[in-house]
């Protein structure tokens, strides 16, 4: 958050004692950010939807009538007053499971992206700034990782280390960094040529200080945009993995493994309450995140001064 703040504030505060050649547009950059962001109606709706889902996920134990693993006395029955969204084939309340599953999706999305963004940013910064043979090696490694079809590699690794929530987060996080690394490296290559970086070098600052205090804040926006779409992709990947039975394992609810029951044609045909709600929730969540990502791309682009 600190970096985020700095990114916006440093653009609005002119250094003391300099003459402004042109005046800043009305208000601070932060204000501009919200004004621009609000223009994207769908993104605002996305923020709202995500807040509701996140709130439900956090407050899950207080707003659900049943624990996600409690077996009730009705099996695979349709919606009723007692179970607003029916019960699954084992007799667990669907609504409670859906709400608890939101925790899994959000944890996977945020956890995996946090890991891959951290690895990718550090490697990208080093690769772009140091250059030379270190750059060559890091870039060849990203090439190698990007050569494997992503889902296939995830499937193979998860079959070896075993399924489970924590493993999924780690796998998606550790395998997802090459994209971030390439993006950061590209940005560093151009920022490196800026005068203020040359000034820091001349001033004799150490490399970590230049990298993390001078270069990183100026490439936060693209990382943030990339990370947003990364969260959406991670949620989709988790759902696909759990759907195939290689992700989060059944007693723990996840939208993906709840959909797996629809692989049977009888469930698909006659018990739509078992597969429609989790699918719709995945779509709403991912769509919201993608809308937000798109709005961020528009509002954070420094070239865009509308």
């Amino acid at each position: 958050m600190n970096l985020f703040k700095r990114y916006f504030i440093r653009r609005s505060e002119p250094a003391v004692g300099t003459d402004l050649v042109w005046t800043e547009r009305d208000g601070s950059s932060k204000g501009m950010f919200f004004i621009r962001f609000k223009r994207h109606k769908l993104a605002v709706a996305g923020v709202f939807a995500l807040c509701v889902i996140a709130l439900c996920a956090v407050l899950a134990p207080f707003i659900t009538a049943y624990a996600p693993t409690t077996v009730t006395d009705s099996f695979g029955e349709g919606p009723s007053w007692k179970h607003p969204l029916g019960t699954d084939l084992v007799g667990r309340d669907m609504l409670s499971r859906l709400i608890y599953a939101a925790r899994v999706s959000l944890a996977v999305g945020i956890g995996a992206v946090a890991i891959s963004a951290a690895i990718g940013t550090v490697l990208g910064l080093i690769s772009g700034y140091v250059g030379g043979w270190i750059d060559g090696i890091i870039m060849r490694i990203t090439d190698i990782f990007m050569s494997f079809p992503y889902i296939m590699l995830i499937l193979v690794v998860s079959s070896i280390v075993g399924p489970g929530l924590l493993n999924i987060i780690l796998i998606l996080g550790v395998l997802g960094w090459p994209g971030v690394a390439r993006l950061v490296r590209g940005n560093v290559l151009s920022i490196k040529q800026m005068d203020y970086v040359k000034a820091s070098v001349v001033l004799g600052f150490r490399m970590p200080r230049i990298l993390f205090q001078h270069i990183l804040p100026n490439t936060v926006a693209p990382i943030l945009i990339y990370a947003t779409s990364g969260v959406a992709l991670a949620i989709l990947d988790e759902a696909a993995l759990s759907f195939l039975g290689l992700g989060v394992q059944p007693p723990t609810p996840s939208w993906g493994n709840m959909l797996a029951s629809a692989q049977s044609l009888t469930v698909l045909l006659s018990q739509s309450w078992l597969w429609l709600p989790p699918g719709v929730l995945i779509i709403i969540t991912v769509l919201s995140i993608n809308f937000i990502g798109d709005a961020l791309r528009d509002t954070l682009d420094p070239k865009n001064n509308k």
Partner: protein
Amino acid sequence: MLNYVIRRILIAIPVLFGVTIINFIIMRMAPGSPIDMLVSPKLPAAAIEAKKVELGLNSPVYVQYYHWLKNLVLHGDLGYSMITYESVTKMIWSHMGPTVLLMGTSLILGVAIAIPLGVLSATRQYSKLDYTAMTGSFLGISVPSFFLGLGLIYIFSLQLHWLPSSGMTVLGGSGGVVDVLRHMILPVIVLTASVAGRNVRYVRSSMLEIMGQEYLRTARAKGLREFLVVNRHAMRNALIPIVTVLGMEIPILFGGAVVIEQIFSWPGIGQLTLSSIMSRDYSTIMGLNLVAAFVVILANLLTDVLYALVDPRIKYSYQGAAKS
């Protein structure tokens, strides 16, 4: 040009090498030794030891890697399945056709939808068509493919009874082109939706960037018709970056095939992958992974060369770099 192609191939070689090393490491990390699969546990320890020596499992890892690589390069031999004892190379080869058919059709259809739609929505930015296309593209990237597949099966197979829900041909039927086509429709729709969804936005933003260029103003200023401005001057340049994006579609499609083939019981690479993962058939998994990685590297190489062909700037910048 030749210079550039050679350089590009030279870069691909260490990557390919790294892919085989990582592949081998993952195979070694897999729990259980292949020896457990091959011999019965009743055999005396000495016999198992002898078998291990015979298979080279006692030699150091790098020697094992060397032998594995030698077999692969000289004979194209990926070893034998730990479960069915079939040749992995043969198994992959026999499952390749259906997947290529599915992926190829979806890629072509997806691009055929994405390019005109992207160009149209860029030329009519903020029109109704633009909003519709963008919403569609967001849906294309946000709806999980397996959910879309299930929905299509629900509507077209279970409710309307128009199309078959699984397999490539009717069981016991004569097969034939029409039969395969009918089975293809649903999975191709799912894959095409995601290909088109991803690429419409790339085409549109690439086109928008070009539309702001000075040389388009020049073209208009000399009185060229708008149709020619868009199709001759803008589109040609806008489509150059799309070549790279298409190269990136190949690994994504490979991954998508795993899920789609599972839902529609399509007898391709994806199903082979999933069934070998379920039965922990590591030699087959590794063979599949290697073939997939090889296809991806080849696709990247092709797109890079193609890129240089359509965009002369790349070629010249490389020549400049070579001289300096």
